[in-house]
């Protein structure tokens, strides 16, 4: 079985990360923004696992595992916050949630 | 032999058997429930309604394929496809027998063995919820949405106790490969009592088994947990807006899921293809004896049949069963098929339990359902896992 160069994985990771950043900055729906964050986390995980695989170490995978767990915790709390925000403001438009202004 | 060709042959065999089982499982269910309710069930199409599934399939195929104007088309079409695909995938890692040799080709009675087989099944089963959720969402209508929402909460809620229940026997087996899990249950206590995980010392997994089965009921949306399709509250739940073949897909997915979880339970807890008692005590002859008994029973009822229409079918099936019993006496066939028999018998028994429960238990209320998993089943599963882990660690 031939091996895929590490750089390809990293490139894919970078592209996905960039997509996540783009979603974070340009999307207006708060849930989509949140999903963009998950996309970024996934992209980083790919890097971790690719490095771990190429270095023959398991540590990177453990790190990715922790990222997943933290992502799960983050999703639970974040979605609870989104629900509460929606309940109070009846909107998911990120630009309407600007009570910090002034 | 070309491994790809072998793979294709095996896949074809498994798929054919699975699809046939799906067809006839529905017939069996209708029959069993009918008998529980002291009815006859399907009787008109074919002898004892044996051709009913074929008729049903035909009906569903030629029904009008409705596509409501308000649906989200892409997802609406994707959902049943997703449901049935995901339901069928898991069967590929489930072992049905040991390594066998047919015409000089040695192979396992299993499509493929993953070293994370259990996780694979869990992963696939965790995706099945999308079929239902998407169906509910894309239908763009009240009841399906409610059904989809309920289903998502229910399946996420019951996946945890399921995982806990699965983890406990894994601790005893020390592997995630389904094949090795079965092989780890090979010993017999006292030379006679099966060392299946459900009985396996130091800590019998009866509790895990019960938790697994309860969670499996919920995961497959079967009574008493069929809230996503509760017909008296939600019309038909997530598939209210579906008709024709797409509707059939959901049905197929449900039955395929049932078969998968029963096969999983067999592998994890009931020793897979392993016999109930050692070969030295003649366990290889059990299939023959069982078939012979069935054949005898059929002949006994069939020779002067209660209904005239059975005068041919009952004796014919009786004779077939007897013939099969004789076939099972041939050593070569016996070695090949006895494990398969055991594995199918156990799975079939569990499937019968599924149907039996559907025929007996009422449906739970939604809040009871959620409270049950979060406040009872999950804690019990965790405790059971902790106890098992402790015992295993102490013995190590």
């Amino acid at each position: 079985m031939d091996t895929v160069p590490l750089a390809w994985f990293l490139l894919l990771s970078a592209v996905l990360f960039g997509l996540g950043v783009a979603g974070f900055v340009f999307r207006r729906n708060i849930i989509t923004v949140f999903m963009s964050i998950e996309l970024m986390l996934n992209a980083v995980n790919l890097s971790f696992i690719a490095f771990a695989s190429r270095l023959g170490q398991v540590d990177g995978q453990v790190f990715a595992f922790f990222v997943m767990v933290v992502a799960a915790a983050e999703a639970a709390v974040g979605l609870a916050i989104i629900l509460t925000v929606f309940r109070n403001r009846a909107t998911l438009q990120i630009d309407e949630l600007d009570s910090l202004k002034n | 032999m070309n491994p790809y060709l072998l793979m294709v042959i095996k896949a074809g065999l498994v798929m054919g058997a699975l699809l046939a089982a799906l067809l006839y499982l529905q017939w069996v269910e209708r029959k069993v429930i009918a008998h529980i309710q002291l009815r006859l069930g399907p009787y008109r199409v074919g002898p004892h309604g044996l051709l009913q599934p074929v008729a049903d399939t035909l009906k569903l195929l030629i029904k009008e394929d409705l596509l409501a104007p308000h649906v989200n088309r892409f997802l609406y079409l994707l959902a049943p496809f997703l449901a049935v695909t995901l339901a069928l995938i898991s069967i590929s890692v489930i072992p049905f027998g040991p390594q066998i040799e047919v015409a000089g080709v040695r192979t396992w009675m299993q499509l493929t063995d993953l070293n994370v087989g259990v996780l694979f099944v869990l992963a696939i089963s965790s995706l099945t919820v999308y079929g239902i959720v998407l169906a509910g969402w894309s239908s763009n209508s009240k009841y399906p949405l409610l059904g989809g929402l309920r289903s998502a909460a229910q399946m996420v809620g019951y996946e945890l106790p399921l995982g806990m229940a699965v983890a406990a026997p894994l601790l005893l087996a020390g592997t995630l490969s389904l094949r090795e899990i079965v092989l780890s249950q090979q010993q017999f206590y006292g030379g006679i009592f099966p060392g299946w995980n459900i009985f396996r010392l130091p800590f019998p997994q009866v509790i895990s088994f019960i938790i697994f089965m309860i969670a499996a009921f919920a995961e497959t949306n079967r009574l008493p947990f069929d809230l996503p399709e509760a017909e008296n509250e939600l019309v038909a739940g997530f598939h209210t807006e579906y008709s024709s073949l797409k509707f059939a897909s959901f049905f197929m997915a449900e039955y395929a899921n049932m078969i998968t979880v029963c096969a999983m339970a067999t592998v994890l807890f009931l020793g897979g293809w392993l016999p109930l008692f050692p070969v030295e005590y003649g366990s290889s002859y059990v299939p023959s004896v069982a078939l012979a008994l069935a054949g005898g029973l059929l002949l006994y009822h069939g020779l002067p049949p209660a209904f005239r229409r059975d005068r041919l079918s009952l004796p014919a099936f009786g004779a077939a069963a007897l013939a099969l019993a004789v076939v099972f006496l041939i050593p070569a066939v016996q070695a090949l098929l006895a494990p398969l028999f055991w594995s199918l018998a156990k799975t079939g028994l569990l499937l019968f339990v599924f149907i039996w429960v559907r025929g007996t238990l009422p449906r739970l209320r939604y809040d009871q359902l959620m409270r049950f998993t979060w406040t009872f089943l999950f804690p019990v599963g965790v405790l059971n896992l902790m106890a098992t882990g402790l015992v295993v660690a102490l013995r190590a």
Partner: protein
Amino acid sequence: MTQHLWLIPLFPLAGFLVNGLRGRRASKGFVNAVAIGTVLLSFLWAVKTIWALAPLEGPYVERYFTWIESGALKIGCDLAVDRLSAVMLLVVTGVGLLIHIYAIGYMAHEGGYYRFFAYLNLFMFFMLTLVLAANFLLMFVGWEGVGLCSYLLIGFYFLRQSATNAGNKAFIVNRIGDFGFSLAILLILVKFGSLDFATVFSKIGGLPEEASAGVLTTIALLLLVGATGKSAQIPLYVWLPDAMEGPTPVSALIHAATMVTAGVYMVARSAALYLKAPLALDAVAWIGVLTAFFAATIGLTQFDIKRVFAYSTISQIGYMFLGLGAGAFGAGIFHLWSHAFFKALLFLGAGSVIHAVGQQDLRRMGGLRQHVPVTFATLLCAAVAIAGVPFTSGFFSKDEILLAAHHHAPWMFWLGVLTAGMTAFYVFRAIFLAFFGEYRGAGHPHESPAVMTLPLAALAVLSLAGGYFNVARWLEPLFPSPVVPHDTLLVGVATTAGLAGIALAYVFYVLRPGLADRVAERLGRLYRLVYNQYFVDEVYQALVVQPVVGGSRELLWQGVDVGVIDGAVNGVGARARGIGAVLRRLQSGYIRSYATWVLLGSLAALVAIGVTGGMR
């Protein structure tokens, strides 16, 4: 075999916890049972321990755990018993037990009943910790703890302004002494690298004489500062007379029998140190004899019965210091032992009188002999003991001290004899004023209940007979005593002084009642000086308190606090507000803008890493 020394202080602590936490809702019977029971257990365990360890030639140490460990420094939580602490143990638990029992009767009608006993138990815990401690730091814990309990109990009637003031005064004055003590502990730590008694004292023996005399003298003097604070010696004695604001059992237990003698105990404990610092030892003797004399003169003129005894306490502790300073450590502890009995008895008897007539002014008493016969009889026992009437406990211990003083410096002996005469005079003055003549107060005095008189009787027996256990001789293995020839003549002089004092008091206050006032008038200015306690409080107020208060107010508060500190804080606040006004522009409230900022930041970070060569 381990003796479980920790149990001795633990019992009262348990009592404190139970009474302190649950006492408010518990019945008086329960509170009594807990308070008395724990002290009784403590007493019994102490007796059992000493019995089991007899004859207790050397110290017996129990090490429990390392309390503080830092580098080479290692301070353990260790308890120890030797003959010295055995004496203290018996005094503290035995007299403490009697006073606890007495307090049941005395406090029967007071508010905060459970609180009182909880404090008493806490005091017992700390006092026993102090006594049993096997190193200076643990001793300091007990030392501070008894100070705390003293403060709490002096201010027990905290609704009375004078009581809280007295409590504050005791606490603050004691802080000065404690400061000295803590400095001494630090010096010991620096000098010896350990605080363990055994280690420190054995190292002292090996030190070169001249090279270390300075440090040792400094340490000893600092310890002496601590001792003068706790034991109410010149110049820090001013808190003790005011401490009489507390309930009488407290005065008896803490401010007569046990806590105030902690300084004596501490100096005796550090005998090895003082023997290497003759200058400090001399200072101890000087302070002791001067305190004894001056306190006695003040005692001559007071009319508050408890104040008379308070000055008497100061004076008697002065005796003990005199004994210590003369090198007769055993004699000092012997006097501590007998003093604990008769002074506790004096206070308890005074309490019984106060209980009977409802106030403390001797001028409003008189003729109580018939009304409170038991109290009178027992008080008389205490009085003869303190006056040094032959064959009472005070006779033996005081003579030991005076003999040692004569050996040390004859003038100290003569001053001591004079003091002994005055002591006899003022004690019997109080007795005669209270119990003879006509009753000058209001109401009908009545005898105290048995729960109060029985401890009085027990203490009376101890006061009379306590001297037959010669503590000084028993302690000889611990202290290298100076060889003091027993001189019958000197003993006779001292005894005669005491008897003369009694006779004089009899003349002044029984035979010719008007004489005392005429003498006081004749002396005029001198009498007023002594009557007002030499105006020491006023002098302290003018010399120490006023400058400190004034300096704090003018310089520290108005100058430093308002000007510098507040100015700096306000300045920081104003500056932050100004910066915030600028930075607020960035706070658009739009999450996406923030996200863009984050993006900008991470890009900048990446570029920075690249530029600085983190990227290869």
